[in-house]
Structures are given as structure tokens and as C-alpha cells.
């Protein structure tokens, strides 16, 4: 009995130390963000600032057009997520439920391309977009990301798990393919779709290299790109940098805590099946 209590205590201890390590960067980011410039560089470190300089947020916010960056990030995230959802649903349906020539080869080729590092695609894509005249426009930030092989693969796997008989039943009930997809398959695949949406939204919100390359004017930048240029401007004003970082990280943390069950389940499922 005593031993069990001891080992349980040990487990808690390890987990708590681990959690502290995980949370410390976030905590330190936040604490720094409300310090005065003098406190930032103080050694030993100041854990609780003398007064909370919330105006750091205001200052950081006004030093760069963060409002514009935020709007851009929201537009890009929402549109590319919705768009990807539609293309993914349609394509996954075709790959899981329809019989057509070349299906397996096409699917294999798509899967194969997942192995290619994304950085390879940047320059040819840049050229394509500039030929289309889309550079520095929302199209460039959104359209290339409207379809994802990984999402299609994930949803296809989920669709395959839905019994074939359901589609037969629906067919007999007078429901055509398209309607069946939206009234039966989509509601049933809700868990998988939520996963896809969340992973996409996180990825889109956090994406960096692509927006860096295809945007030119300040007005078109997204938050992470804005943050890097801000970091040059802010120099070593770490309190401002941390305030800006907090502003970028916070929306995703809130989203995460609201929907963490889906995110974690989704990752677990996507991982195990993938």
C-alpha cells in the first residue's frame, strides 16, 4: 500500500515537472510582455513585475499594423479552411465510394507526392502565381492551399469505414450520390472533418514561409510574417516582442482549449491510421 502511494507520488512529481517545462516558455512570454524595459533585463529575473505594463500590448499593436495582419490571417485561415473542406469532401468521396479508371494509380501518385519536401514547390509555385498575376493578393495566400492530399487521405480512410450498405439503402430510398454525400456521409464524418478543419486552421494561422514569399506590401502580410518584420523593428525590446508573440499565440491557445478534445482525438486517429 505504502509503495503504491509512493509510486503514485513519483508519477505526479514527474508529470508536474514535465508540465512546468512545457508551460514555462508560455508563462515567461506572458510575464515578459507586461514588464517594464528595465525589468526585462534584470538579473535575477523578475517573476512578478512591479506594475503590469499592459500598455506594452498597445505599443506593440501600434508599432506595426497588427490589426491588418490579424484581419489577413483570419481571412486566409477561414477561406482556405472552408475551401479545403469542400475539395477534400468531394475528392475523398470519389476515392472511397466511386469506381473509375485509374483510381488506384492516381491515389498512389498523390500519396507519393506527400514525401516530397514542401520547400521544393515554392519557386515553381511562385512563378505560376505571378504568371496569374496573383502575387500580393489574397488568391496567392489562399488558392494553392485549397486542397490537401493528407486531408483527402484522412477523410477517405474515414469514409471507407462507413458501411457500404448505407449508400445502398440511401440509393433505394431515392437519394442520389451528391445528396447522399452531404446528408449522410458528411454528418457521419463529423469527427474526421473537425480534425481536418482544426489541423488546417492551425497550420494556416501559423504558416510562415509561403506568405513571406508571396506577399509584398505590408497590407497583405499575415501575423507570423508581420511578427518577423516587427522583430527587426522592435530590436531587443523583448517586452514588445513578447507582447506581439502573445497576441499571435493566444487565439490558437483559446481555440485549442475550446476544442482540445477534437484536436487530440483527431491527431490520435489521424496518427494511428496514417
Amino acid at each position: 500500500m505504502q509503495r503504491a502511494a509512493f509510486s503514485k507520488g513519483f508519477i505526479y512529481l514527474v508529470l508536474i515537472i514535465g508540465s512546468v517545462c512545457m508551460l514555462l516558455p508560455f508563462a515567461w512570454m506572458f510575464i515578459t510582455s507586461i514588464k517594464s524595459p528595465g525589468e526585462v533585463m534584470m538579473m535575477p529575473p523578475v517573476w512578478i513585475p512591479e506594475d503590469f505594463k499592459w500598455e506594452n500590448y498597445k505599443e506593440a499593436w501600434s508599432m506595426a499594423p497588427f490589426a491588418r495582419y490579424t484581419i489577413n490571417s483570419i481571412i486566409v485561415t477561414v477561406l482556405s479552411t472552408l475551401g479545403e473542406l469542400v475539395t477534400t469532401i468531394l475528392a475523398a468521396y470519389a476515392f472511397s465510394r466511386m469506381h473509375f479508371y485509374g483510381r488506384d494509380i492516381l491515389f498512389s501518385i498523390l500519396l507519393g507526392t506527400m514525401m516530397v519536401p514542401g520547400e521544393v514547390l515554392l519557386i515553381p509555385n511562385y512563378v505560376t502565381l505571378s504568371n496569374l498575376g496573383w502575387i500580393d493578393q489574397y488568391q496567392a495566400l489562399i488558392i494553392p492551399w485549397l486542397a490537401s492530399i493528407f486531408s483527402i487521405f484522412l477523410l477517405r480512410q474515414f469514409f471507407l469505414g462507413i458501411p457500404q450498405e448505407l449508400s445502398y439503402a440511401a440509393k433505394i430510398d431515392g437519394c442520389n450520390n451528391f445528396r447522399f454525400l452531404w446528408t449522410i456521409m458528411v454528418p457521419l464524418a463529423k469527427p474526421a472533418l473537425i480534425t481536418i478543419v482544426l489541423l488546417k486552421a492551425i497550420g494556416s494561422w501559423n504558416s510562415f514561409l509561403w506568405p513571406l514569399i508571396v506577399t509584398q506590401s505590408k497590407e497583405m502580410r499575415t501575423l507570423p510574417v508581420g511578427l518577423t518584420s516587427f522583430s527587426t523593428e522592435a530590436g531587443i525590446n523583448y517586452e514588445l516582442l513578447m507582447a506581439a508573440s502573445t497576441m499571435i499565440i493566444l487565439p490558437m491557445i483559446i481555440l485549442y482549449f475550446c476544442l482540445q478534445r477534437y484536436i487530440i482525438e483527431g491527431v490520435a486517429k489521424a496518427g494511428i491510421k496514417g
Partner: protein
Amino acid sequence: MKIQLKELSMKFDDVLAVNGLNVHINKGELVSLLGPSGCGKSTTLFMLAGLYKPSSGEMYFGDTLVNNVEPENRGIGMVFQNYALYPHMTVLKNIMFPLKMAKVPHKKAEEKAIEMANLVQIGHLLDRKPKQLSGGQQQRVAIARALVKQPQLLLLDEPLSNLDARLRIEMREEIRRIQQEVGITTIFVTHDQEEAMSISDKVLLMKDGQFQQYSKPQEMYDHPVNMFVGKFMGNPPINMIPVTFDHKNLSIQINGTDEKLKVTSKLNYELVSGNQMLLGVRAEDFVLEKLEGISNSFSAKVDLVERTGRDTLVHATVGNHAIRALVNQDFVVKPSNIVKLSIRKNRLQLFDAETELNLVLGKE
């Protein structure tokens, strides 16, 4: 609606799943498609439903050729083996779904769905989701959904196979009740001969995509057209004893013994290919006597006696062939007794050893 299948075939790649099926089903009949798994019965059902397109042959619903009619336009209802209920919809929504697709006004659809739910006795479960129902209840929902459109033809694909033994009997009676109440032509796929016997007006027996026999269940039991049908129907299985036929004396001799029996049934000599045959006798058709001297009988040695309450099953050996006989429970017999066996009148079958066809001429 009467159904007619003419030379219906289905080929998957190299496999001939259904081969030249010719069947006529009368209006209002319940027909079982029976056979071991992989015999093509489900394929036939799916062709009837329009989910598969036949490779060749014709299907008539009434007088209409339906080969190229889409499932939703065939006027059919179907119940699947796993019920295929829409998991995210309530019972009511499930039943209403076909009506919704047919653009029936919501109010009317709901009324009809409730009516149908009451018919299958699930009126109190309308707000539940399929997951919250027992197997039998799901079954009823599936039937209600299949019937709510008032189809001309009801297709049931092994609907009872996912239920436990007691529920299976209950549901099978229930299906029969509903079918007769609605008066709908019904096709019922099963691999369970007892189920088919108990529920059907007619049974269509198939093997490896080949038609075997299509007749009333009792007829099929009493007069199987070949060894396969004979063996497939009935439990315990029919006894098959190799015999040699004596054409001159119209008698048979059990191989490996001196036992001879006179054959009184009329035989179809056109089907005979030699004198090696198999004598088919159902366990309940043996008459067992302890005494010597009964005519047209043979002796066998008792190996084991099983009492199951209602009946007594005697395992015995004649020559080196094991046989089983059901006898009256009053009859007292012990292992290693020698008994005399005779066969009830007109209850024996003779199968040609080579063609496996039944040589005894039936009533028809």
C-alpha cells in the same frame, strides 16, 4: 407485383456469381433465396434492387423490364443485413428519409412514418438514435423504413443473421406477420434452411450461382431434386447410404452388406447412369423394430442413443455406414443392440451416384 427473371446472370471478373437464373414469383408471395454463403443469393437480391447491373438476362417487375431502371425508381424497399440505419438520424428521421427524398410534404411524411412505426411496434422509440436501440428494434426500424414508401417489392438481405436465437424466431414471425398484413411481394435471403422453411411461400435454392430447385418448402423437403438439395434441407441431415441397384428385381443392396430392400417408388429411368446409387432417408422416416421378421427391412447395430426430450436420436451402423434415426421416445434401446430398420412408405429417395439426381418420380 409479380417478378420474373429470365436467364439472369452476373459475372464479376472471372467469377460467375449467378448463372442463368429463371424464376417466376407471384404477387404477394414471400420467397426465400436460400443457399450456402457465396451461392449468389445476395448478388441476385442486389440485382433485383438495382444495385448491381446484371451481365445478361432480363428482370421483369410486373410487365416492365427493369434492367436499366435505377433503384429508386423500381418501387422497392430493402432491409440490409446490418440494417444500414443512418446513425446520425433519429428513428423517426430514418423512417421519413425515403419520403423526404420523394419530396413528400413534411407533415404527411411524418404521419406516414409514425403509422409505419406503429405497424412494426416501435412507435414509442421515435426520438431515439439507432445506437440506443436493441438489435430487434433496429430491425423493426429498418423494416419500417423499407415499407414506408409503400413499395411493390420488399427485399430482405439476411435480416435475422445478426440477432440471437430467440429474437431470431420472434422477428421471423414478425416479418411474416407484417408481410401478410401489408400483402407485399417479398424476397428474403437467408442461409438458414429452417428459417426459409418456416417463413416462405416458396424457396429458391441456389449453389455456386446455379439454380437448384424452386418450390414450396415442404415439397423441397419431401422431394429434393438432387443430393445437394436433399442434404441442405433438414436437420439432422438426411442419411445417405451407398447402395447397388438391381434393375431386374427393382431392389437395392446396401453396399458392403447382404441387406436388400425392395423399391416400390416409381423411378425415372432416364436419369439412371449405372447401378451405383445413394439411398436417401430422413432420420424421422426410419421405422425401428426390435423384432426379427419384418419384411423389407435391414439390421443395424446401435452405437449411441441421444435423448433430447421430445425425440430420441439413435446412431447406428449398417455395414460400415453410420446412420441416424429419430424414434418414438417410448422405444427403449441400448448401445450394441441389433435393431431392424424399415422405411416409411414412399419416404425414400434414390440418387444416382454419378449425376446426383433424384431418381424417384415426384408427384408433379
